[in-house]
């Protein structure tokens, strides 16, 4: 096990495309870090540079206290799980898992002990004689993880390992991966574009965009205290709503955000001092769908505000109902109760919990 350090790392492809633009990242021993971001953000390139599968154009990568920039993948003592599993089709499950150990000339009984132990952890003991073609997607994924586990490497690298699985299996395997990490505690770097995967698995999440790191933090940090508009919009499902609005002074010394001529939302007292400097400026009000819900007069608390919505689409999900509407042309989603009276074309009174609001400077994209 080891810590991983990515220092000012740059990746420039032929033709001058800069995929990674000088990122810094410190990953502690035994930590589970997830790199998340949209396609082309540089997360997979970063992982592949850690693995040694991509050359580094600039900067340094350290694994376990050593610079590994020029160390080939086989000497980095890492194991990687690929999106398409990359199992050797001509080898049995046992041979797939044992391959790395055989190349490293481990004794036969030690190989068998390690494979059996990994097979027990992953519950694939009955599959050891099969070829990969005779396995389901989930079983192949387990074998790919088993191949990584038996090596007992310093670092596990996962490159979108659940992307090829159906939704149900993905949830199941997510739990399995978390369980495995709780058992073996190997430092793990995991790449995904799925923010739910990132939130559920990670000790810390690294949000990347356009080759740079937007924010690093615990899942709760990112969710409740996003640093940028990108992170605020990327983390959370459904995504955060962004309403253009002007910060204005209210009668009695308060602050309001005017989201349209008829709708003034009072800024909670606790945030007034922080937002006062933006008085008179056009900002973006960020509110998550779960902080917009059915309005019930008796349940209104300090920091709550009422807003009437002309319902566009209603999506019943069982345990909740998503209500979509527009505020001055901006699409907005509210998470309502299953029993909500919302119907398309009708006005629905909504309560906004502004205690959880975010104010974003549209010029810098920073959450203030």
């Amino acid at each position, binding site marked *: 096990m080891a810590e991983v350090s990515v220092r000012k790392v740059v990746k420039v492809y032929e033709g001058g495309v800069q995929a990674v633009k000088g990122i810094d990242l410190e990953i502690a021993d035994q930590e589970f870090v997830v790199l998340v971001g949209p396609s082309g953000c540089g997360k997979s390139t970063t992982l592949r540079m850690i*693995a*040694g*599968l991509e050359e580094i154009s600039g900067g340094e990568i350290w694994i376990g206290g050593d610079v590994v920039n020029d160390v*080939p*993948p*086989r000497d*980095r003592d*890492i*194991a*990687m799980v*690929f*999106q*398409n599993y*990359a*199992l*050797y*089709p*001509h*080898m049995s499950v046992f041979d797939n898992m044992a*391959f*790395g150990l055989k*190349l*490293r000339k481990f004794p036969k009984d030690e190989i068998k002990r390690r494979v059996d132990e990994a097979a027990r952890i992953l519950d694939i003991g009955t599959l050891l004689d099969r*070829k990969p*073609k*005779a396995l389901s997607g989930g079983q192949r994924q387990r074998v790919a993880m088993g*191949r990584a586990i038996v*090596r007992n490497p310093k670092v596990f690298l996962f490159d979108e390992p659940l992307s090829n699985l159906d939704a149900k299996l993905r949830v199941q395997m997510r739990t399995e991966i978390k369980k495995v990490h709780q058992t073996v505690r190997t430092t793990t770097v995991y790449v995904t574009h799925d923010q739910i995967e990132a939130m559920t698995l990670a000790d810390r999440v690294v949000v990347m965009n356009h080759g740079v790191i937007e924010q690093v933090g615990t899942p709760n940090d990112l969710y409740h205290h996003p640093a940028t508009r990108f992170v605020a919009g990327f983390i959370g499902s459904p995504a955060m709503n962004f309403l253009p609005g002007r910060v204005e002074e209210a009668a009695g010394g308060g602050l309001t955000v005017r989201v349209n001529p008829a709708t003034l939302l009072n800024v909670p007292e606790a945030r007034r001092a922080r937002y006062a400097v933006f008085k008179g400026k056009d900002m973006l009000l960020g509110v998550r769908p779960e902080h917009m819900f059915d309005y019930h007069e008796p349940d209104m608390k300090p920091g709550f505000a009422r807003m009437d919505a002309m319902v566009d689409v209603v999506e019943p999900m069982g345990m909740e109902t998503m209500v979509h509407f527009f505020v001055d042309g901006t699409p907005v989603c509210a998470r309502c109760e299953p029993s909500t009276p919302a119907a398309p074309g009708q006005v629905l009174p909504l309560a906004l919990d502004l205690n959880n609001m975010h104010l974003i400077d549209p010029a810098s994209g920073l959450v203030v």
Partner: protein
Amino acid sequence: MMCLPLFALIGGLVVYPFVYSIYLSMLSRDMHRFIGLFNYQYLLTSDTFHLVIFQSVLFAVTAVFFKALIGFILAHVMHNIRGRDQRLWRGLLLVPWVIPPALSTLGWWWMIAGSYSAINWLLTAAGMQPVAWLALTGWARFWVIVVNVWFGAPFFMIMYLATLKSVPEQLYEAAAIDGATGIQKIRYVSLPLLQNVISITVLFSLIVTFANFDIVEILTAGAPANSTQVFATYAFQVGIGAGNIPMGSAVSLFIFPILAIFAIFILRGVNRRTREAI
């Protein structure tokens, strides 16, 4: 009914010539008398024919081995050249295969035959004695095989390259992370995944090489002293050259059982691997 044209085609182009050549091989030299298996019996006791069998097997097996080996190496080299350069080199390396062998063999003949051939000119220029390449048994056999390899290796290269391109790059990456060196990646990833294509191309090439006529005929015509004679050239010499068509048929039909043995072993391996779901 819809399959009738196919049956007619196979019947006319495969079954009839095959059966007719079996019939021919059982006739006397003047083709008027049925003599059963006498021609085969005669061939099996003929020293010249023993030499033809030895030379045919040596020629085909050695040439196919080197074609496969060179094709395999070239395919890997090509696979690791990126972009436009690969297309250029691939095109250049295919040139020997697309030139009609009768013409290219003639080119080779000019290079190696006689005292004033290009290679001998070079040897002389370097102060060495010219060599009668095609008049010495060992060298004649060597050059016949070299020209066949030169002509056939590009076919192997293109077949292996096509298969290599279908091997997911991530298998090599996984092997690199598992600790494999370049050679080990070839040994444990490329080779097993190419095994079926290698088997099929080797079988195909064995069939074509055993039946090869033009290269040997143009380069040596079986000389010196029948030491480069193969089935096809010997069948031609006996059947057309000496006018003994039944004996020529018998010679050419000898290829069949030899190829059948190769085919059984190779196809058995292919079937086994296919069953194991590679």
